[in-house]
C-alpha cells in the first residue's frame, strides 16, 4: 500500500505523461491549421495545457510559488486570445474595405 505522498508522486508522473500527449495533439492542430481562428483556438488550448503542467509541477515539488505563475499565465493567455480575436475582426474589416478576399484558406 502506498502512502499519501507516494501516491501523489505516482499520480503527478502519470498526469505529466497524459498532459504531454495533450500538448502534442494541440501542437498538431496549431501546425495543420487550416485557418487562422483554428490556430488561435489551439494556442488558447496550449495555454490551458501548460497551466496544467505548472500545477502538476507545483504539486510534485511542493513549491507553491508555481501557483502564482500559473495564474499569471492564465491571465496572459486570456488577454492574448482577446487580442487575436480583435485582430481577426480588424483584418477582415481592412480587407473588406479594400475589396479583397482573404478567405481562400477557409473555403475548401
Amino acid at each position, binding site marked *: 500500500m502506498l502512502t499519501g505522498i507516494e501516491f501523489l508522486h505516482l499520480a503527478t508522473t502519470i498526469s505529466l505523461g497524459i498532459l504531454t500527449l495533450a500538448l502534442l495533439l494541440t501542437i498538431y492542430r496549431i501546425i495543420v491549421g487550416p485557418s487562422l481562428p483554428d490556430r488561435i483556438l489551439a494556442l488558447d488550448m496550449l495555454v490551458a495545457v501548460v497551466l496544467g503542467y505548472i500545477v502538476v509541477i507545483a*504539486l510534485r515539488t511542493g513549491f507553491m510559488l508555481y501557483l502564482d505563475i500559473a495564474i499569471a499565465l492564465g491571465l496572459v493567455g486570456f488577454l492574448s486570445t482577446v487580442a487575436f480575436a480583435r485582430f*481577426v475582426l480588424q483584418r477582415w474589416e481592412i480587407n473588406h474595405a479594400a475589396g479583397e478576399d482573404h*478567405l481562400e484558406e477557409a473555403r475548401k
Partner: protein
Amino acid sequence: MIGEILYYLAGILIVVGALFSLTAAFGIVRLPDLYTRMHSASKAGAVGSGLAFLAIALASFDGAVILRALMGIVFFLLTAPISAHLLARAAYIAGYRPAAGFRVDDLEKVEQIPK
C-alpha cells in the same frame, strides 16, 4: 489520517484533470470545424485546469494557497467562455462558416453580419 486522504484525493483529481485536458486536445484534433473545436476546448479544457487547481488546494494545507487556487478556478471559469465567445463571433463575422452538415445557424438571420 485526514491528510493522507486529502493526498489520495488530490492525486486522483490531478489525473482526472489531465484526462479532461487530453479529451479537449483530442476534440481539437478530431472535430470537423472551428465552432465544434471551440466547444471542446473551452468546456473540457476549463474543467481540466479547474480540477488541477482544486487538487493543489486540497494537498497544500495552507490557507493562502487554497485561496489563490480557488481564485484561479473562478478566474479560469470566467475567462474561458468569454474568450471562446469573442473568438467565435470574430471568426463568424470575418466569414468563417460552420462545416457543411450544420443544421442550425441562428446568426444567418442577423442583419449586421455581412454574408
